[in-house]
């Protein structure tokens, strides 16, 4: 069993950091370190989805370490902000972020996808502390988060609801039903985050199911969608995007992030081949130095 790296900066320190610039650099480092953890765990267990987990690393890290109001010691706190990972196959990254955020012991990451584990193949809200909604079958998250935000309105609560969708979710008809319905009901503080990494299971999105022009589609569906496409791998950029969302008063709001599937390793980037492939010993050994190289660079910037 691989021992997970000890981070050079403790998650608690990142949370407490007041200097915005420093904090962004720390989160950039942490996101990369989580990427290494996921690479290690996926190789160790011989199962899991690297491509989509890697593409969402910075987005999840920024959300959980800077934006979401959550209480790791009280995961079901009724006033918490909600995060629905509609692209549930990125579970390994979500679990890694949640563990480091204090929702459960980091050692538990080694039980990923094993018998009797709280870390199911795809997120399960009743199994894992901090998971707000079970996902896996694609296309559910938009509807579910719409329901959560409508509940907030009815109960006069002010929590935020974020949903992260990939191309797979956008292929599903249900998502477009939900986009229409969200524009009808206009719940406050509902934010859709698109992790647009360009690849699906079988090939590129352009090849499998072209989604362009995505901005125009959201716009036509009467969403307040950011005209800027943000870089989902630059924490500073991700924070800008989330700040944009929080400044809006027209609902619902959406942000499109350009990301790379399999981000961080040259040969896993921009291909569908590492969507859910087993990370064998050879691939693992070949890829890890690249991840570590970037991590070392980010450590210098701390």
């Amino acid at each position, binding site marked *: 069993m691989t021992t997970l790296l000890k981070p050079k900066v403790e998650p608690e320190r990142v949370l407490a950091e007041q200097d915005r610039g420093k904090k962004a650099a720390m989160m950039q480092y942490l996101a990369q370190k989580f990427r290494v953890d996921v690479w290690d765990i996926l190789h160790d267990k011989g199962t899991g989805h690297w491509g989509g987990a890697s593409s969402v690393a910075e987005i999840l890290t920024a959300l959980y370490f800077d934006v979401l109001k959550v209480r790791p010691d009280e995961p079901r706190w009724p006033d918490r902000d909600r995060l629905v990972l509609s692209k549930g196959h990125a579970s390994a990254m979500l679990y890694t972020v949640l563990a480091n955020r204090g929702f459960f012991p980091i050692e538990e990451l080694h039980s990923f996808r094993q018998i009797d584990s709280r870390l199911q193949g795809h997120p*399960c*809200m009743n199994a894992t502390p901090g998971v707000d909604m*079970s996902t896996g079958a694609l296309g*559910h998250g938009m*509807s579910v988060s719409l*329901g959560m935000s409508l*509940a907030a309105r*009815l109960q006069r609560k002010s929590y935020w609801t974020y949903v992260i969708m990939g191309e797979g979710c956008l292929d599903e008809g249900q998502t477009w039903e*939900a986009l*229409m319905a969200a524009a009808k009901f206009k719940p406050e503080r509902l934010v859709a985050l698109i992790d647009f990494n360009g690849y699906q299971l079988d090939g590129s999105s352009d090849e499998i199911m072209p989604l362009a022009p995505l901005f125009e589609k959201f716009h036509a569906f009467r969403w307040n969608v950011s005209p800027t496409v943000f870089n989902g791998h630059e924490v500073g950029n991700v924070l800008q995007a989330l700040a944009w969302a929080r400044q809006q008063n027209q609902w619902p709001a959406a942000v499109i992030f350009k990301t790379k599937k399999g981000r961080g390793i040259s040969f896993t980037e921009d291909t569908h081949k590492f969507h859910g492939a087993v990370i064998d010993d050879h691939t693992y050994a070949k890829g890890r130095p690249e991840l570590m190289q970037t991590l070392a660079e980010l450590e210098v910037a701390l």
Partner: protein
Amino acid sequence: MKTDAKLLSMRDALGQTLVELASAMPELVVLDADVSASTKTAGFAKAYPDRFFNVGVAEANMADIAAGMATAGLRPVINTFSLFLALKCADQIRNTICYNNLPVVLAGAYGGLSDSFDGASHQAILDIAMMRALPNMVVIVPADAEEMKQALTLALRRNGPTFIRGCRNETPVLFEGAEPFQIGRARKLRDGKDLTIAACGIPVVMAMEAAERLAADGIDADLLAVATVKPIDEKALAASASKTGAVLAVEEHNIYGGFGGAVAEALARHAPTRMDFIGVQDRFTESGPYDALMKKYGISVDAIVTRAKALVKAKPAAVAASVAMGAVKKSAAKAKGAKKPAGRKPATKKAAATKATPRKPVRRAR
């Protein structure tokens, strides 16, 4: 059907009950997929517009919105035609509502053949099968408007998902003033020794009439109204089956996978019994008046009587003997089937002993 009974539709009962419960239950919300005039949730929509969500013809979306609401403490009731609920939201009901055990009430309107004129595309004869196969789901098939009302009220207090199957049309009110409906408990409507008739939904009233006709012909039916298809009342079914040795399941559904299947599964475990099944015989149905349609597809008083007689006739002699031995006051001569199974002990000896304990008299529905 009895003509003296008051007529009321389950959908009207549902609509009224939602409005009645709303003020004492601020967490109650109602969702509909552009059929609120049909499902009768329109009254709630008018009275509580902030708590009503018409999502358009997008059933899957409706189910998951409700799930999201339920995670945040609301108590949603989702409404559409039962067939569409079962099929168009199957993934959402399974993977979101049931997997997470969320307290959502799924009100399947127009169950069975009750959307009769709209034809096979709208007639729900697989909804029970589908809902029954979902862990955490409770499946209720009320027999009248009163049971619908009570089932809905109880379902809204459950901490998990409940499917309630309605009926479009006005049907006799059977259980007003009767013993209150309880989830998981069958109602004994008639005590008999010759066969068990177990029914759910609208056909319960047919089974009641059939039992009377059978009695006139000397066949004494034990009649169970089993509104909760899951969890099914195994105890009541096994006790009755052990006593009678023959069970006729009656439902407004395909004979595969529905109520009859649930009864058979329960009995196979606890009291293996010869059975037959009243229901749609694995066919697509068609348009027509409700009563005529039910009759054509084999769900009628006549069909119940005919099948019940055949079932009694086909009972194995050993069981018939045990029935005769267990009968307390009836003369042995009357139990015709008991043609001395020389030396053979009754197959269901233990069960035969239990069934001799007098059952607490249950109020018979009118």
